[in-house]
């Protein structure tokens, strides 16, 4: 993953922060906004950390349901004196690019998309690498040699998850069977909000003999967990440590692990770097090397294959293994 | 017994000082009527005199602004029809109040359903209806859908509805308007029977001979107020009419024949299938195909209808409603598909669109002005354009010529005496008669060579009626061919040069209006007299 640019290794000088730092950080969520207990909330966690640790004044905005005003939110933040400004989600790519040219003195960051201007920092995540580890874990734990993947919306971000997962599974069990279902086509975002459909898709996989299903389907993942619980099988969560965020106890136990995507880290590190005087124009890739992605270990279900996972991780960090970011089809 | 005699002494209904105002209209003003029990009491009056309004007040559908109502001596105040029903009053409305997609039984029991537990007790209802029907000689099949019934049957259903609720006082608002004489006679038979059982009937009609035939008392209403109470034995139809309108009755007499030998419209073998039009298969002649349809027992709405209308001739079509008149009109207008040929001035127009037919000189006064003739929520001048949107003066290239259309509407308003504040008034603000005059004026413009006039004076008061008849006669004299369809047999006989009777989609008799009575005509219309061609 991740083209040019550096990885987030360099620590900006002067970690300590002054309370009244004069730092005003603006953040614009993706459609769905705050409270998705996942991607957007992770970004907010990073922002909040900046507030407590760096003394930043923060403002976060959610777009209209149709996402038509993403660009305007960025502009309104800029006009209100916020700097830096972060757009959460690849859907902001065009808007951040435009806003960055309109406001060359303000620093922008975009999550999940590459830098497009000198004052834009791309915060990229190597989902395929994390998903690769999820695939390794799934394959290692699968007794049937049959696993599944449920994607919410068939867009290229989610296909990245699929690609990594696929490669990870194949690396352990080359002839393993992998069922893949996407709930809705690209452009129809209801696939992230349809737990019933997630359940039906996962049910089918379990009925066909899969014993572990990985999801990248937002709220629809809940259905995947339910199907797993009903079938007495396992599931893998996504983005945050879902074994902790899911409140139903019967569902917690089916979540074998979760593929973590540390958007909070990305957001916080960006703000910190900005405070330290860093400039944009480059991408920062949060990959396995910097623990920007990884697997959650809550519940201890993958402790027994820790060595295998560590090895895979090492190979990826070394570059021995190149994880594809698009599934072969 | 003494209680009985007391009851007979007390009036069934007493209306005192009833006044009802609508925006801009006083529908009823200080009306006083006393109805004796066990009698048929007729209320007559011209259109808009306030008869229906008064009855709706008595039936609880409208509330009077002033005045009192007494039923069987008790003062009452009805808020809804249910109150009136509870007081033993039933009403048959001027327009049928039936749900087409319901069975007869469902229509009758609605609102007064017998129950078995939670269920609707259809068994009990059916028994009760059959009993009632037998007792009063009202034949109906409780399980038929109302949409399949003819007008006579529907009328009986309406009366049964009222009887079913145990009404002792029946209001019949113009029940005979859609009936042929034989059906009227049958209805009167029923009414006399009801009367003999002690029921009270309030009967509304414009048809004075009928009123004189059935009524025990007559009240005349003019302009919303009672002008006279008369005894039918002491009054003539002419005197009644004068009381109603304060003028003489007009007659629809056409003077001398203006029929020419030039055929304006020729219809040959017109046949329409009931269950959707199917094209005639290739290589089959129409007659062979229609024969096949008949053999198969398919219902035909129009069955081999042929006739000619000459310039200057009025051809009247007589028939009970629902025997194919509407279909005939729609086939000639090209609104519905049919087999057979239609020729206008020698040109075959069978395959033409409605628009092209209108453009080539067919005018059309529809039977239901609100449904087919007007855009109620549009202005008068826009209504003038309707049907003439592709012709001068309404059109100017792709544009609607508003100026010319308005000017021409002014002309119609003048020539046809349409009472309106102006051409921008919405059509719905006009009274029915004025709306009808506007339609007649519109259809006469553009010099049509052939006019379809369906019930041209239905629901129109005497003054307007006479005016419309004059216009038709003048146009006929100028060479217009007219196809006249009317339920008013006097109008039909008076205006037509020839009368054809339509029965079950077939033309069954051609009659000479000069020597036919309404009664005989009714015989043909109901199929009682078999069709012999007399000429």
């Amino acid at each position: 993953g991740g083209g040019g640019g550096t990885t987030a290794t360099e620590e900006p000088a002067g970690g300590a922060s002054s309370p009244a730092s004069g730092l005003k950080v603006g953040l614009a969520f993706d459609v769905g906004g705050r409270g998705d207990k996942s991607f957007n909330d992770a970004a907010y966690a990073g922002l909040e950390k900046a507030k407590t640790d760096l003394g930043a004044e923060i403002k976060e905005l959610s777009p209209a349901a149709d996402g038509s005003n993403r660009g305007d939110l960025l502009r309104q933040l800029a006009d209100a004196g916020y700097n830096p400004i972060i757009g959460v989600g690849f859907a902001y790519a065009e808007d951040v690019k435009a806003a960055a040219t309109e406001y060359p003195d303000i620093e922008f960051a975009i999550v999940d998309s590459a830098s497009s201007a000198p004052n834009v920092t791309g915060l990229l995540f190597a989902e395929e690498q994390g998903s690769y580890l999820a695939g390794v874990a799934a394959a290692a734990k699968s007794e049937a040699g049959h696993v599944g993947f449920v994607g919410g919306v068939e867009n290229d971000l989610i296909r990245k998850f699929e690609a990594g997962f696929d490669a990870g599974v194949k690396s352990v069990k080359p002839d393993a069977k992998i069922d893949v279902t996407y709930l809705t086509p690209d452009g129809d975002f209801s696939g992230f909000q349809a737990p019933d459909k997630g359940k039906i898709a996962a049910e089918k996989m379990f009925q066909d003999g899969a014993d572990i299903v990985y999801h990248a389907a937002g709220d629809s993942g809940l259905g995947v967990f339910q199907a797993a619980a009903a079938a007495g099988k396992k599931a893998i969560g996504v983005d945050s440590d879902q074994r902790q965020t899911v409140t139903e106890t019967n569902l917690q136990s089916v979540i074998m692990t979760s593929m973590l995507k540390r958007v909070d880290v990305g957001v916080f590190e960006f703000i910190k770097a900005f405070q330290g005087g860093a400039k944009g124009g480059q991408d920062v890739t949060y990959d396995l090397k910097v623990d920007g992605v990884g697997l959650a270990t809550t519940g201890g279900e993958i402790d027994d294959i820790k060595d295998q996972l560590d090895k895979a991780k090492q190979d990826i960090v070394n570059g021995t293994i190149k994880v594809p970011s698009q599934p072969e089809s | 017994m003494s209680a009985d005699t007391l009851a007979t002494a007390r009036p069934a209904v007493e209306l005192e000082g009833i006044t009802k105002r609508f925006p801009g209209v006083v529908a009823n003003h200080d009306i006083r009527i006393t109805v004796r029990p066990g009698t048929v009491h007729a209320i007559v009056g011209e259109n808009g005199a306030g008869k229906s309004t008064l009855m709706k007040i008595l039936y609880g559908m409208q509330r009077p602004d002033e005045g009192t109502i007494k039923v069987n001596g008790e003062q009452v105040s009805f808020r809804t029809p249910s109150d009136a029903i509870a007081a033993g009053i039933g009403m048959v409305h001027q327009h049928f109040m039936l749900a087409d997609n319901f069975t007869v039984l469902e229509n009758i029991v609605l609102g007064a359903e017998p129950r078995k537990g939670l269920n609707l007790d259809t068994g009990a209802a059916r028994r009760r209806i059959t009993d009632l029907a037998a007792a009063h000689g009202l034949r109906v099949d409780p399980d038929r859908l109302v949409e399949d019934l003819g007008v006579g049957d529907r009328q009986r259903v309406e009366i049964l509805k009222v009887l079913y609720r145990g009404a002792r006082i029946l209001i019949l608002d113009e029940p005979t308007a859609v009936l042929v004489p034989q059906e009227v006679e049958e209805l009167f038979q029923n009414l006399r029977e009801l009367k003999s059982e002690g029921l009270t009937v309030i009967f509304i009609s414009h048809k004075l001979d009928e009123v004189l035939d059935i009524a025990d008392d007559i009240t005349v209403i003019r302009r919303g107020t009672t002008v006279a109470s008369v005894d039918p034995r002491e009054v003539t139809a002419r005197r009644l009419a004068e009381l109603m309108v304060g003028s003489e009755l007009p007659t629809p007499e056409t003077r001398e024949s203006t029929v020419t030998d030039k055929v304006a419209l020729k219809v040959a073998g017109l046949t329409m299938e009931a269950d959707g039009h199917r094209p005639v298969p290739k290589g089959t002649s129409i007659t062979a195909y229609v024969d096949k349809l008949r053999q198969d027992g398919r219902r035909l709405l129009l069955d081999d209808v042929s006739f000619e209308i000459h310039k200057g001739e009025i051809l009247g079509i007589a028939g009970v409603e629902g025997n194919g008149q509407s279909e005939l009109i729609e086939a000639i207008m090209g609104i519905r598909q049919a087999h057979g040929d239609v020729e206008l001035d020698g040109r075959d127009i069978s395959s033409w669109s409605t628009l092209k037919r209108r453009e080539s000189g067919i005018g059309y006064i529809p039977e239901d002005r609100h449904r087919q003739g007007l855009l109620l929520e549009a202005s008068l001048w826009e209504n003038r354009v309707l049907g003439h949107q592709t012709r001068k003066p309404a059109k100017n290239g792709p544009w609607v010529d508003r100026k010319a259309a308005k000017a021409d509407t002014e002309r119609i308003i003048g020539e046809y005496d349409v009472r309106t504040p102006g051409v921008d008034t919405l059509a719905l603000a006009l009274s029915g008669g004025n709306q009808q005059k506007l339609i007649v004026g519109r259809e006469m413009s553009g010099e049509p060579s052939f006019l379809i006039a369906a019930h041209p004076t239905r629901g129109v008061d005497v003054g307007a009626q006479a005016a419309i008849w004059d216009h038709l006669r003048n146009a006929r004299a100028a060479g217009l061919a007219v196809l006249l369809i009317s339920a008013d047999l006097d109008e039909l006989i008076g205006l037509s040069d020839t009368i054809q009777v339509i029965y079950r989609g077939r033309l069954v008799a051609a009659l000479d209006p000069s020597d036919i009575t309404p009664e005989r005509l009714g015989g043909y219309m109901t199929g009682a007299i078999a069709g012999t061609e007399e000429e």
Partner: protein
Amino acid sequence: MPAGLNRALLTLAGAVVAIVLAIAVCSVAIVAAGGDPLHALTAFFDFGASERAQSNSVATLFNRAVPLFIAGLAVAIGFRMNLFNIGVEGQYRIAAICAAYVGSTFVAPAPIQIAVIIVVAMVVGGLYALIPAIMKVTRGVNEVIATIMLNYIAINISAYLVRGPFAGARAEGELTVSTPPLPDSGMFPDLNFVFGWFGMLAPTREGGLWGFLVVAIVLGVVLWVVLERTRFGFDVKASGLNQSAALAAGVNPKRMVIAAMVLSGAIAGLIGLPEVLGSTGSFGTTFTSGLGFLGIAVALLGRNKPAGIAVAALLFAFLDRAQGPLQFANIPPSVIEIIQGVIVLLVVVANEVTNRFALRLEERRAARQLKVTA
């Protein structure tokens, strides 16, 4: 005509009352949420502190109003003849992707390039609307269901096209998919100079004030002329007011259904173009959806008349624009949707009430004048 003026004034009064009531309802909600309705009200009028922010806000307002206006027009044509084209949503999506793709495949002088794109959009939108029209006239399929189904089908087809046959090149790691970018000659020139007339700064936002506004205005005027002054418009009105009278008057109902539906679809085809030609230059995953449904509300609010639709579109755009400012004032932005819903409901209720009042007045007037003359 004083009668017409009377009616117009009454309508206006009704609308104002409705809007005031809607604001009151929302104030209650805001208070319940622990907010201050006055803050909310100021947020709606908060166009930014700097001149530049104000210019941008105004541009945003109009840029939002333009597609809403076109959507309202598209919906209104069907509604005027009681034809419920719920399928505007699908029609504009399909049209936008096809137009964006076709526009990217060639380079021609700007007027030609843009004209071709517009024509393609209208043709595709019209053709897609032709499907339910034909289904209705030949098989009697209810257009409401047919267009609802076709909306879902359109989402799938456009997803397939944008990822498959119509996909443009992408930078490595770019996650959005879109059609290839339009050449510069395909971008509609902006209207930023207009701001100069009012002594304002030109907006700096991407695309500025979209030039498509001009097309929308022209469209509105043309449509008004077509609907109010031509034979076709008369036929539409007649079919809408009284189907059977229109039929008897020689208006071919099947042809009218097809014509109205296709015209509605063709206009729907334009809904996506302001965005494509104004800023994005392509159809992609972030293409604004849902305008077809909002168009229904806008059309109904505008009583299916171009001028009314323009007002309604501006009102909706005005409310939508406050999405950001409301959040700055710590007020849940969902009050916007509530206001919009309440306004639609109350305005039509007010319409209904004033309409009846006006009719009654007219009848009374007619009756009075007759009495004078008689």
